[in-house]
Every structure is written in C-alpha cells, then in structure tokens.
C-alpha cells in the first residue's frame, strides 16, 4: 500500500533529509531520497508533546494551590501507583517509572491518530515492536538485577528440578512469545481501527465513521492499559523472590 506523506513528514523530508540519511547510515542503511517515515516524525512529535507537557507542569507544581494540570497528573500517578502495587507488591516504586512512561507514550501515540492530519505511529509494526522489545529487555534486565544471573536463569527450570528438561524449552518459547504478542496486539488494534474507519467511509457517507473513531479512542485507552499491565506482570514475574 503506498504511503502518503503527512505535512510534518513533508517538512522533515524537505529540510532535514541529510540528517535522516546520516541517522539511517549509522545503522548501515543506504541513503534514500526521502528518509523520514511518517511514524518516525509522529513518534518525535509525541515525545515533544510529553516533554513540553511536563516542562509546563514543573513550575506550576505547588502544595498549597495545585492547579488543574497538577490535579490531573496526581490522578494519573495515583492510578499508576495503585496498579503497580496490585501487580508488583513489594518492589513497586522502583519499576513504576518505566511502566508509567510506556503507558503515557503508547496512549499518546494511539490518540494522536484521531487528530486530522496525523496518524498513530503505533499503526506501524515497527513502533510497537520497538516498545515490545524495550519491555522485553527491561523486564529481563530488571530480573537479572534483582535476582542475580544464576537465580534468574533458574526461574526457567520451573518449580521442581526434574521437570527442567521439559520446562526450559516451554519457558523460553513463552518468553519469546511475549514481545511478539505485545507487538501484534497493539499494532493490530490500531491498524484495524483505522481500516474499519476507512472502509466504512467508503461504504457509507461522510460522518458515519465518527462512531468508529469513538471506538478507536476507547480501544486506545484499553490497549495502552493492557500494555502497561502486561509489562508490570512480566516485571513482577521476573523479580519475584522465592520465599
């Protein structure tokens, strides 16, 4: 399917093509005429929005007279803390930062597709694979850090030692299936949301797909929540100490 350029991507490609080719050249890709892809510029835009949001928040933080933005962020933080304590019990504060960041990033990436003239970067499998691989490395590294290398690898052997030859391939396969399922779940939900909107636009007339865009908003929240929840569950599984 031919990819049409958004106006942001056109801006990047017209002015910063050299930078794009340098960056892709760093990983060994050949230079092309228009190196910036839609999802790259959209991801950068989402990162910029997050940075600007927190840059606005910081000077307005106040214990005596909290403003609206502080209230919203406190609600959000309370939500994260509740979820983390449900899933990760003892070690929640350490790992809250990554899980909360993943939630906000995935949520804003999903929602930015509703805005006309922009598309969700999570509609491309590359972006969701990036998030899933980051989560994979995070929970494994965190598990290694919390338990030590030998005890973490002993997790793969299962509950009793004589089941190990059976359990180790099963555990390895299930661990490898985790980033795959995270990738495809998020990508397929966002992609299907857009396809359904487009198809119903073709089938009926102008304002009918608004219903599907509403569904897409709900699904965006749900999928971001499920991504964060699964990250927390994997981290909890990796760092659990056997008592």
């Amino acid at each position: 399917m031919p990819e049409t350029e958004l106006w942001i991507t056109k801006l990047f490609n017209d002015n910063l093509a050299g930078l794009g080719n340098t960056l892709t050249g760093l990983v060994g890709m050949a230079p092309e005429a228009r190196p910036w892809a839609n999802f790259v510029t959209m991801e950068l835009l989402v990162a910029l929005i997050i940075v600007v949001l927190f840059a606005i928040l910081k000077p307005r933080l106040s214990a005596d007279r909290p403003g609206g933005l502080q209230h919203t962020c406190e609600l959000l933080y309370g939500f994260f803390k509740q979820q983390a304590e449900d899933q990760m019990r003892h070690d929640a504060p350490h790992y809250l930062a990554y899980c909360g960041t993943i939630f906000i990033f995935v949520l804003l990436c999903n929602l930015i597709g509703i805005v006309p003239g922009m598309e969700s970067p999570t509609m491309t499998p590359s972006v969701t694979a990036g998030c899933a691989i980051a989560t994979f490395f995070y929970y494994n590294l965190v598990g290694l850090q919390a338990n030590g290398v030998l005890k973490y690898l002993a997790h793969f052997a299962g509950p009793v030692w004589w089941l190990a030859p059976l359990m180790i391939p099963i555990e390895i396969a299930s661990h490898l299936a985790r980033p795959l399922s995270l990738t495809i779940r998020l990508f397929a939900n966002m992609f299907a949301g857009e396809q359904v909107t487009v198809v119903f636009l073709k089938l009926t007339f102008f304002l009918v797909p608004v219903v599907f865009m509403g569904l897409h908003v709900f699904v965006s929240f749900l999928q971001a929540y499920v991504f964060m929840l699964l990250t927390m569950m994997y981290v909890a599984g990796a760092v659990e100490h056997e008592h």
Partner: protein
Amino acid sequence: MTKKNAMWMLALLFLASPMIFAQADPADTSAIAQAHTQWKAIAAGFSMAIASGLCALAQAKAVAAVAEGTARNPGAADAIRFALILGLALIESMALYTFVIIFVKVL
C-alpha cells in the same frame, strides 16, 4: 442455515478444491495466479469469519461469568471488572492475529 448444513457445505467446498487445482494448466501462469487470488480471498474471508466468531463466543462467556459473579458478590465487583477488562483485551487480540495474517499474507 443450520449448523449441520453449514458444516456440509464447508466439507463440500474442501472436497471440491483439488478438482479446481487439478484443472489449472501449468504453463498458464496468469490463470494460476488468478485462481490463487480467488482462493486467497475466499480463505481470508472464511478465516476472519471463524476467528471473529470464536472470539465473540469466548468474550460472551467471559461477560456472562462477570455478570453472574458480580450479581452473586457485588463487593468483589472491582476485582471482577479488572479480570474482565484484561480477559476481553487478550481474547480480542487473538482474533486480531488472524487479521494481521490476512493483511500480511493475502493482501
């Protein structure tokens, strides 16, 4: 159409497929490619329908269990709702795997 009739029609379709493949001329690549496209379209339609149907059945079971559980024990409604949301999202993703395969392999 009853379930039994639908199963018979599906079985007839599967039985008829070798005849259609056998009649294709090996030297005529465009006809084979066209036949492949037609069969890919039919396969995509059926597989997505089966996946969506089974996904709907599974989600219906989940919602029914949640409704009954909440009715029996309204105090546990929050925990049950959490399990519902997680379960529905995971079941939904199974149907979406089929959708992804269709978009990757067929279209």
